[in-house]
């Protein structure tokens, strides 16, 4: 491009609003969901920015899983709207959300145990070469592209022909996250990725999450462990009884205050007064 410097930057900011951190990748306004007469979640307003790790914390039944399920298209909201790059959207299925760059990685990681790593990596999105009936799975490219993606995240899984069942829990997370990144995840939703892992493997997965965020992905992390959330999170959303009660940045928190919030925050105080006055 040989355009003048000033017009260049002006047109950039006009045509690519996602550039700065001004327009969030994903925004929800007044989001809520009812199941019959039960209000599982109500009036949630959040914006997710590229390059940030947003931790979603709260008790069981606080509404955090309903929240992420709505983000990835598994549950439809009954109130409010979801905006992708500032434009209102509706996802009728996880597949549709995935096509728009919103990918969820669940605890059971959608890996077929007896298939090799590269076969798993490209499951459902196999790269092909050749023409008509000679069209074939581009195995060379598949192995190479997988290794490249894994290297970018700093993951080494060894032989790509290994069967997936030989991976450790942390390695499995690494493969699933790398797969999501390969398919262009702009919003990566991770549901308790460290819940079944030991300390060392958890550390590796958390580093991986940081690296994914550094590459410009908006990461949403659900975790019950304050230490993990504190180490990796830029922002913390605390859910309680179907409401978003706290939206805090990491600078405003210590590990202690985060643990306090995650343990129920105000509820703990309430409980203490209730016990004291009983």
């Amino acid at each position, binding site marked *: 491009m040989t355009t003048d410097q000033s017009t260049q930057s002006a047109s950039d900011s006009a045509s690519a609003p996602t550039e700065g951190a001004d327009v969030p990748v994903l925004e929800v306004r007044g989001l809520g969901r009812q199941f019959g007469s039960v209000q599982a979640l109500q009036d949630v307003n959040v914006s997710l920015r590229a390059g940030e790790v947003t931790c979603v914390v709260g008790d069981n039944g606080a509404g955090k899983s309903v929240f992420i399920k709505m983000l990835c298209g598994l549950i439809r909201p009954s109130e409010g709207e979801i905006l992708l790059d500032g434009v209102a959207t509706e996802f009728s299925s*996880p597949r549709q959300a995935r096509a728009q760059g919103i990918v969820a990685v669940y605890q059971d990681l959608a890996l077929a145990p*007896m298939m090799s790593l590269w076969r798993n990596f490209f*499951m*459902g999105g196999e790269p*092909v070469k050749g023409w008509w009936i000679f069209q*074939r799975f581009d195995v060379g490219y598949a192995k190479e592209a997988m290794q490249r993606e894994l290297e970018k995240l700093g993951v080494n899984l060894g032989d790509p022909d290994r*069967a997936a*069942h030989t991976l450790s829990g942390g390695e499995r997370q690494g493969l699933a996250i790398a797969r999501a990144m390969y398919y262009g995840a702009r919003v990566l939703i991770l549901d308790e990725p460290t819940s079944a892992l030991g300390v060392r493997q958890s550390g590796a997965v958390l580093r991986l999450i940081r690296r994914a965020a550094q590459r410009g992905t908006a990461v949403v992390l659900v975790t019950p462990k304050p230490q993990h959330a504190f180490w990796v999170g830029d922002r913390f959303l605390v859910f309680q009884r179907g409401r978003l009660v706290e939206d805090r940045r990491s600078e405003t928190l210590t590990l202690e205050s985060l643990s306090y919030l995650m343990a129920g925050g105000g509820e703990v105080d309430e409980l203490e007064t209730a016990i004291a006055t009983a």
Partner: protein
Amino acid sequence: MSRWQIPALGKAGPWVQTAVLRPELGSLVAAVLLLMFFSIASSGAMLEIPTLARVLDTAWPYGIIAVAVGLLMISGEFDLSTGVMVGTAGALLGVMATEWGMNLWLALLLSLLICLALGLWNGVLVVWTGLPSFVITLGTFFGLRGANVALSKYFTGDALIENIDDAAGYDSLHAIVATVFGTAPSDFRISLLWWGGFTLIATWILWRTKIGNWIFATGGDREAARAVGVPVNGTKIGLFMLTAGAAWFVGVSNAVRYTSVQAGQGVGAEFFYIIAAVVGGCAMSGGRGSAIGPAIGALIWGIAFVGIPHAGWNSDWRWAFYGVLLLLATLINHIVGERVRTARSG
């Protein structure tokens, strides 16, 4: 959990890895050992050309269908209607050619379409109802078993359809599906080439195409596959049509070769295809297997079928032999699967 547990054999070692990646290896070793065993037991007669010709001629019909049944098994499903479908294909071809005076090539095409439609029926019912394919295809099995004989009696007045060689187009069709190379008893049918070619193409599809990845994924973890966009239902329906198509090929080949069709033929053979696939290393629970394995499994049947009488034993022992082989192969598959499962949760 009162289920019987396989005793622990230590942590999943490299042998599990090998068994997962090369599932046909065990059957290859078994085939070689059996051939050696029967050679010794028959004082070398087993390795003479006419004997080997008989082994191959016994094995090929089982081989062609077992390869298709193996692919279906990898996707996690069964087809019990394949044996009787052989009779259906032959009877259809025979009735069309001898009773309706149809050109054999046209009859060939029409019988193929009908068999594929029956495979489609199996597949769609399995996918729609979610019932076990064992039950759905058992229903098709009984339906066809009755229809084959009843319809052939209705049209020809007999369960035996004869004189297919009088129909137009017989010579050209015979050249393609039943040509003989060499002179009896050292004769080899062109069917062996079809068997080999079909096995190679199936291997290629399984290991080197998108569809092959879908087959493994469908049987390996159906929900995972669906979640990442694999057309699980389409894959299954396609494979039911493939098993029906394989049965059709064997049915019409035999009809042309023998120039007559027993409408009741093929009943009971469905188990041999399944056994050949399992012996060839395909996991009954899906997700693991190969195309070459079932072909070797069928070869083992051929070796035993010819070898047992050559060794001077009562040929009734064939059945017992195959029963033992099935049990052993299933047990080995189960142990491998169990290793994989425990390694996964650990």
